[in-house]
């Protein structure tokens, strides 16, 4: 992964989360992992193509997911019903699309696939890929969202 796009990517996602949540977002320490996999209760997986190959995972625990869904819908989400799941899928799309647009404006060509959402027992189906992955925790009012970026540049 290259610093020139990874910093823009993370900054754009954090800015979009701040705008969507309406409250400041702080970033935790970046960690490097040898593989990309989801570990919390809910994960949105977005494939990336174009100048890069790989994927982005946006994951959170159930409490955070319900709080975020409630905030976005302006009414409490008591369970992860279809509307809550759709809301979280849309959130993931907004966050990653912001980063993709910022990079495309810098002459990179990044494309994203529609997010796939995995929860609970389905989480294992999100798979694991042996690709170096950066993990950044983003701390919002509703809770912490982990952003995993596992991308390689196409030469």
């Amino acid at each position, binding site marked *: 992964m290259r610093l020139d796009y990874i910093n823009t990517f993370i900054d754009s996602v954090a800015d979009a989360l701040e705008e969507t949540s309406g409250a400041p977002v702080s970033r935790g320490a970046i960690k490097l992992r040898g593989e990309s996999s989801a570990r919390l209760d809910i994960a949105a997986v977005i494939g990336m193509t174009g100048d890069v190959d790989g994927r982005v995972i946006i994951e959170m625990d159930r409490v955070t997911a319900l709080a975020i869904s409630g905030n976005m*819908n302006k009414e409490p989400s008591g369970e992860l019903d279809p509307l809550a799941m*759709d809301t979280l899928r849309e959130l993931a799309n907004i966050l990653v*699309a912001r980063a*993709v*647009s*910022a990079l*495309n404006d810098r002459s990179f060509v990044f494309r994203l696939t*529609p997010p796939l959402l995995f929860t609970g027992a389905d989480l294992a189906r999100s798979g694991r890929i042996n690709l170096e992955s950066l993990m950044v925790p983003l701390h919002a009012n509703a809770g912490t969202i982990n952003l995993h970026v596992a991308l390689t540049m196409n030469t």
Partner: protein
Amino acid sequence: MQAEQNRQFNFMVVDDSEFARKSLIKALTHAGGALSGEAVSGQDAVQKYRTLKPDIVFMDITMPGVEGIDALEQILAGDSSARVVMVSSLSHQSLVRDALKKGAKHFITKPIQNAPMDEIVRFVLSL
């Protein structure tokens, strides 16, 4: 009676996301609009436009099947006076330029809660 007097335009929202459609409907109703229909895909939008003929269509770009830009072109092919506003999470310059060149009247970036909907509606209705 007050609600009727406040309604200034009919609109259709097009998005495969239920959350996105609900958000748009809420914002546009607040701006004085009346919902004339919802569509969940580009193809659905083109078919519904023919019968509903809303004053403004608010349409997502990335949808399964017929995408928003293609649906925009098809709607305009059938009605060159159609007013279509694109709504998308993606906002890079080439995409926005492409949408406007193909006939979209405006482009809104998601999340929509900070979009000046009243101004956008007034502007688009004036075209």
